C-alpha cells in the first residue's frame, strides 16, 4: 500500500475518534436549556466527521484515479536512503531541545546554542566563525525583538534573572 493510503488510514482513525466524541460523548455535559437550541456545540463537528471519514475512505479505497506521475516528484520517497535523514532528525531534536531550554537558559544562551548546534549538525567545523556568527545573531535578534519591537524576551538564564 502506498504511503498516501497509509496516511488516509491514519486520518480515518482520527476522524472516527473525533466523530465518536462528537456523536456520543460531547453532548452528555450539555445543560438541558442548550438542548432546546437547533445548534449544539457538536453539530458542526458531526458534519465534519462524516466528511472527513468519506474523504479518507475515498483515498483508502482508491476511488479517485491517482495522477500520472509527471517527472520527478517534489521529493522522492524511494530515494529516502540518499537523503540526509539523520541530519534532519537531529535538527528536529535540536528544535525540541530549544523549546525545552528556552526558559531555563534564557533567550541569548539558548539561541546561541541552537544556531551553533544547527550549523555543527550540518557539517560546519570552523568553530570560531560559527561562534561569532551565532553570538552576533542571537544578540542582534534579541535587541530587535525586545528593544525595537517591544516584545519581552527573557534574555538571561533563570538563576541570573532574580528568580
Amino acid at each position, binding site marked *: 500500500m502506498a504511503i498516501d493510503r497509509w*496516511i488516509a488510514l491514519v486520518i480515518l482513525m482520527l476522524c472516527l475518534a473525533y466523530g465518536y466524541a462528537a456523536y456520543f460523548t460531547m453532548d452528555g455535559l450539555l445543560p438541558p436549556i442548550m438542548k432546546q437550541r437547533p*445548534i449544539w456545540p457538536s453539530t458542526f463537528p458531526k458534519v465534519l466527521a462524516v466528511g472527513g471519514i468519506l474523504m479518507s475512505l475515498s483515498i483508502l479505497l482508491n476511488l479517485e484515479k491517482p495522477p500520472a506521475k509527471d517527472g520527478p516528484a*517534489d521529493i522522492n520517497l524511494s530515494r529516502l536512503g540518499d537523503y540526509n535523514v539523520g541530519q534532519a532528525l537531529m535538527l*528536529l531534536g535540536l528544535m525540541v531541545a530549544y523549546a525545552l531550554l528556552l526558559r531555563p537558559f534564557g533567550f541569548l544562551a539558548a539561541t546561541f546554542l541552537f544556531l551553533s548546534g544547527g550549523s555543527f549538525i550540518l557539517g560546519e567545523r570552523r568553530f570560531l566563525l560559527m561562534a561569532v556568527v551565532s553570538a552576533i545573531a542571537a544578540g542582534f535578534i534579541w535587541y530587535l525583538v525586545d528593544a525595537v519591537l517591544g516584545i519581552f524576551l527573557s534574555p538571561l538564564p533563570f538563576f541570573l534573572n532574580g528568580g
Partner: protein
Amino acid sequence: MLEGLMTGLSTAFTFTNIMMVIGGCLIGTFIGMLPGLGPMSIIAIMIPVAITIGDPSAALILLAGVYYGAVFGGSTSSILINAPGVASTVATSFDGYPMTRQGKAGKALTVAAISSFAGGTVGAVLLMIFAPALASVALLFHSSEYFALMVVGLSAIAAFAGTGQVSKALLMTFLGLIMATVGEGVLFNAPRFTMGIMDLQSGFGFITLAMAMFALPEALFLVLDPNRSKTADGESAAEIKELRITKDEARRIAPVIGRQSIQGFFIGVLPGAGATIASFLGYAVERNIASKEEQEQFGKGSVKGIAAPESANNAACTGSFVPLLTLGIPGSGTTAILLGALIALNVSPGPRLMIDEPEIFWAVIISMYLGNLVLLILNLPLIPYIAKVLAVPRNYLIPFILFFTLMGAYIGQNNATELLILVGFGICATVLRFADYPLAPLLIGFILGPLLENNFSRAMQLYDGIGFIWERPMTLALLVLAVLLVVLPSYRQRRARDRAEGVADGD
C-alpha cells in the same frame, strides 16, 4: 471611488506607512530570495511584528509590502540560480535562467521587474474597480449565503488541486476544519476536543500552524536533499550588469504585459487558482500566440517568456485580494494567512470593511501602487547587492530558517509548548508532503473554520434547522455550485479513464 482614493492616500502617505511599504518590500525581497521561504512563510514570520505595530492599516501595509517583495524575490532567485522559491515563479525560470547563463541576468531582472510592476499596477486598478461593486452585492448576503459562499470557496480550492488530487485536497480541508474546532469556540463557552490539556484551551495558534505547514517542511527538505539548496556556485550570481533593455524589446513585451496583467488578475480572483496557474497559463498562452521564430526562442531566453509569467503572477496576487477584501474569504494560502492576521488585529474583512473602515481598504490599495513603485525604483538597482544573500552557505542558512520559524511561533504566544506543537505538526506536514497531500487547503480550512461554523450556526438558529438550505434560493444555488465544482472534474476524469480503458480492452 475618488473619495475613497483620497482617504487611502491620506492614510498611506504618512512617514510611518511609507517606511512600512519600503521596509516590507525590502524584507520581503531579501527573505523571498532564500530557497525555502516562500511568501506564505515570510508573511507568517512577519505577523507578530505586524501585530505589535497595532495600527491595522500600517500592519496591513507592511504585510502587503512583504508579500510583493517576496514574490519579486522569488522571481530573482528563479532567474539567477534557477531555484524558484515558490511555485508561482517556476515559469519565470524557464526563460530567466537561460538568460542568466547567456550573461543577460541584468536584462532578465529588468524585464521581470517591469512586468511585475505593470501586472501589479493593472491589478490594483482592476481591484479598485471590481472590489466595491462586488462588496455592494455581498452586502445583500445573509449568514446562510456566507456559509454557502465559503463552502464554494473551499470546494473550488479542492477542485483546482489538479487531477487525482481532489479527494486529498478535500480531506486536508476537512482536517483543517476539524483542527479549528479544537479549543474554546466563540459561539459556545465550552472547550471542545481539548482532551483536558490546558494548552489546547485556546485552540491551535494559526501562526504556529502556518509555520509548521510551510516553512518547516521546506527547511527540512533543504536538509534532506542538498541539491535543493543550490546557492550561487561557480557561475556567480554576483555578476549582474547591463540592466537596460532595448526599445525593440520593450515594444515586443508591451502587448504581452497588457494581456497577461488582465488575464492574470481574473485568474487570481478565482479561489484556489492563484498565481501559479496564472503564471503557467500566461506563459503557455503567449508561447502559442507568438510568431514562429519567437516560439523557437521560448525556453531559451525569450524576454516574452519572462514578461508573461511575471505580469500574470503579480496581477493574480492582486486579484486574490478581491475575495479577501470584499467577502472575507481567502482564495489562497497567502491570503488565508493575511486573513488570520486581520482577525488578530480585530479587523473583520468582508463587504462591511469598505463602509466601516474605508481607510484600511483604500490604504491597502494605495500601498499596492506604492509597493510596486518601490520594487521598481528601489529594488532593481539594489538587486546586485541583495543577491549576495544567495551566497550564504547552507550550513548557516538552514539553522537560521529553522530559528525564524521557532521565533515566529514563540513571539506571538510566549509559550514554549507552542514550539513543541510546531515541531510535531511540522513532522506531520513533512510526511504529508512526502505523500503528495496539498497543505494549503488544510490551512485555509483551519482559518475559515470558525467563520464557517459561525455563519452555519447563525443560519441554523434563524431558520430553526437546516431549512435555510432550500428556503433561500441563493444559498441552494451556491451549494449546488460547490458540489458541481468537486464532482464534475472527477466525473469527467472517471469517464475519460473508463473510455481509455475500454479502448485498451477493445484492442
